[in-house]
């Protein structure tokens, strides 16, 4: 589904990604871990199409297409979704109204008829249950005055509405207490199936107890320096990141 080869990216004059390789197939969950500043969020941003990042080398192929040539909204039309680490607050735009526009623009791009108000509402009700989110929250201005947990639940709600093929969760666990974490993770697990893939970007192993990954990769200095299964995450939790840094230094 996703094939990243030798990806190099910089922001302003800072080179962040230095030859990153990653293969993700449908049905898989990959965790990207790594110390602060290793390039985790940059990877998420580059995949979603954030303009400030410049790809200087390498390729990203997604479902046979050159992902990097697509505008952010075109990536969404193709089924890419980014759950933000810091969801943006937009005063005056309610989640419901903006999701209606989003869902229908995606449908239009896919050559489908727009959903009428009734179908949209029933779809919304169904997805709200997944993330245990209240409609009153969705009527309010997008993320404005939301708690950390509410913002992250709203991200997963949007993911549920858009049914992406490739979801990238950027530090979705940050700022969540254990109950909120469980709700968010349950939502993600219910959305997980053999046709979609999920990349979980996280600093801590905690989230991976709830969203169990098939593969764990360690990102350091803009490259994946170690890959393994979920046991690798436990090892990182126990030993920290220093031994990885040492290993890389030796090589």
């Amino acid at each position: 589904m996703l094939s990243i080869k030798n990806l190099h990216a910089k922001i302003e004059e800072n080179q962040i990604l230095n030859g990153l390789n990653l293969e993700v197939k449908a049905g898989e969950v990959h965790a990207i871990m790594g110390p602060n500043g290793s390039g985790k969020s940059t990877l998420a941003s580059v995949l979603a199409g954030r303009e400030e990042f410049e790809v200087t080398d390498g390729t990203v192929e997604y479902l046979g297409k050159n992902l990097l040539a697509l505008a952010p909204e075109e990536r969404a039309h193709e089924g890419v979704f980014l759950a933000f680490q810091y969801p943006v607050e937009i005063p005056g735009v309610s989640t419901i109204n903006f999701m209606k526009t989003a869902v229908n623009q995606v449908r239009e791009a896919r050559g489908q008829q727009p959903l009428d108000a009734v179908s949209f509402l029933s779809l919304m009700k169904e997805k709200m249950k997944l993330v245990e989110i209240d409609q009153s929250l969705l009527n309010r201005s997008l993320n404005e005055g939301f708690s950390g947990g509410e913002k992250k639940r709203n991200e997963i709600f949007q993911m549920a509405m858009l049914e992406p093929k490739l979801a990238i969760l950027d530090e979705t666990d940050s700022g969540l207490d254990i109950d909120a974490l469980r709700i968010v993770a349950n939502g993600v697990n219910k959305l997980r199936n053999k046709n979609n893939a999920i990349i979980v970007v996280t600093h801590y192993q905690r989230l991976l107890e709830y969203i169990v990954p098939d593969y764990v990769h360690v990102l350091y200095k803009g490259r994946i320096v170690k890959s393994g299964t979920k046991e690798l995450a436990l090892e990182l939790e126990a030993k920290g990141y220093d031994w990885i840094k040492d290993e890389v230094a030796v090589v």
Partner: protein
Amino acid sequence: MSTLTETTPLLADILATIKPEAGIRADALAMLEQLGLPGNKSEEYKFTPITRALEKNFAFGDPSRETNISNIGEFLIPDLEGNILVFINGIFSEELSTYNHEELHIKPIDGKEKGFASLADFKSDALVAWNTAAWTSGISLDVSANTEVHKPVILHYINDTTQGDAKSCTRNIIRLGKSSKLTVVEKQDTIGTHAGFSNVVTEGFVEANAELHLYSIQADGGKRFHFGQTTIWQNRDSRVNTFTLTLDGKLIRNNLQLILDGEGCESHMNGLYILQGDTLADNHTVVDHRKPNANSNELYKGVIDGNAKGVFNGKIYVRPDAQKTNAFQSNRNILLSDKATVNTKPQLEIWADDVKCSHGCTTGQLDEEAIFYLQTRGISKETARAMVLYAFALEVVETIPSENLKKYIDAMISERLHKSF
């Protein structure tokens, strides 16, 4: 030569067109000569070079031209039944106007009305002095006590510039009796491609417990240059709501002044300017708290694109007697282009000590992070921009109490912001 005011051929041309008379007109004429027209150092017109603009675009020595407009249908506000009062090139047209003669007492203004020229101060502003000396037409509108006027009064200011430029000074006086209620809408339009200048001074007296809603819709695609002075005096427990929408025009200067001269007054002043091209829109507002226990709330927002220019100046006076005043003011702007500018200045002068006052102004660019966020959900960049800007503007539109006018204004700003969702 001082640049504070300008002794220009323009002033000489204007003075030559005004016949000397006795009384207020003569006083105002003398004042205009003394003040001169505002120059580029004039504090009140610092960002709005109205004198130069008029000089460049108008020949004030020329006589006014005949017009023969017989139908104003294209300028009516859709789905809004109103009392229609029509001004063509500043002259009130009784024959084009249709209104309820029982609820509204309307006659041509003659300058002998009680309170005439007592509110709009011609001693400090040359453009008010000009109007006071030279007005040629206008109406006196009275609403009797305890009368609720059901349909809004819509003042259509139409410039006919098909034969050449149009220039006018119009003068109105509006009086709301005790516990009466009235909605007034001013709307500007132009027929023709030449420049038009309107100088409109309106004085309003709102008696105890009366309620006035005043809308100004400035979306004239013609070459409109406009100076407006609207001064409203409020007696106790009266309520005044104003909404000023500016979308088009070459140079628009709105002086809007509310005088809260009784206890328990409530005033809301709202404004929205969404500018593009080379439009200049200048809102100078004054809220003058003179008596205790009154509330005022002011919200002006601007979205400025192209070479357009926005100016906001908001004065709040809280006089020594006006204890327990609540006065709030906010001006927020978004600049969409490198050449768009805004000059904003709050000015609070507070002499009373037991008051709650606040003001704030911000100017920024469109939130790119918000646009990106919406894009990642599949929304096109254009739609995302429109969404964020529309939401920004909506806060002001939502203050409009009339559903029909809200719908009309909402449609106009939706079109301007390319709202497609």
